[in-house]
């Protein structure tokens, strides 16, 4: 599974990468972007199966990236997991309305990440089966 990790802090990208590897995802298939703009360029040029993105980033924020993904015909079905320090109620609602697949509030742990990822893929499988 090809995953794109988007965060402006290199530390956080590395932490998320480590956690994903710990959960059994292949290190070599995980790529990184440091803001929404770069992420969008990468998403348009190669196929990914999952995006894990931060909210607060320069140039293009996570919520704008999410909206751009949903607005792009070739990307709109891509699962997006938001991992952010934003715990503002309105922002969580905005993310839900923009079509986020999961929302994790930092600081988080491997158990939470695993739980949210499992839920995302279960829902997608159910949606795929019923479609």
């Amino acid at each position: 599974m090809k995953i794109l990790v988007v965060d402006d802090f290199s530390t956080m990208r590395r932490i998320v990468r480590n956690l994903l590897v710990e959960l059994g995802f292949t290190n070599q298939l995980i790529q990184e972007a440091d803001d929404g703009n770069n992420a969008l360029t990468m998403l348009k040029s190669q196929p990914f199966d999952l995006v894990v993105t931060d909210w607060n980033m320069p140039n293009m924020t996570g919520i704008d990236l999410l909206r751009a993904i949903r607005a792009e015909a070739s990307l709109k079905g891509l699962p997006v997991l938001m991992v952010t320090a934003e715990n503002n109620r309105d922002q969580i609602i905005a993310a839900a309305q923009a079509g986020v697949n999961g929302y994790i509030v930092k600081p988080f742990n491997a158990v939470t990440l695993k739980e949210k990822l499992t839920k995302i893929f279960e829902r997608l499988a159910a949606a795929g089966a019923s479609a």
Partner: protein
Amino acid sequence: MSAVLSTFDEAALPPELKDLLNSEDGAAFEHALDALVRQREQHLFRALGLLARDLHGAVSRLGNDLAQEGVPGRVADVRKHLNDVLEMSAQAAHRSIDFAERMSPEADKLAQSAEQVLASAAPCDPVADLARQAGSFAGACREGLNDMVMAQSWQDLSGQRIKKVVNFIESVESSLLELVRLTGALSGREPPPVVEKISGQDEADRLLSEFGF
């Protein structure tokens, strides 16, 4: 006139106004009213004048402080310090993750070796006991190293706050400079001298060696 003002308590008015209100001389009443309004306006203008003078004094002092103490430079310094903290903390966090990434495979190898030894050793063999201990130690290490990686998220959380402080300082700085610029309080002043800084021990040693140390 007295009919219109009948709702007022005339007794509460100053005697001269009361007299005027009840007088038949309309011109004298108008005159007295004008004088009263002028008097109030003068108070207001005097108060505004004092405020303007105070404001001008405060902004001049601010301009003076900014120029003499090199506050714009110091604000830039503070911002740089904060960005340095951001950079140093990121490096420290990466070093911790480097360590965890280097040690995790070692722990995995130890766990595997322990399993191999356990598979071939007799259950009561002291070697089996040691292998069991090594295996559980390797497992605990692996878990601890994962926790250590996760704990480095402090850098991201504290870093985001530092970025907010840097942005805030920037906005305060530009507002202050704009205020001073508007009043011209900084014009014609010399910028503060730049203090040269060295980047580390190597540069300090090089500099000292020029002086024969």
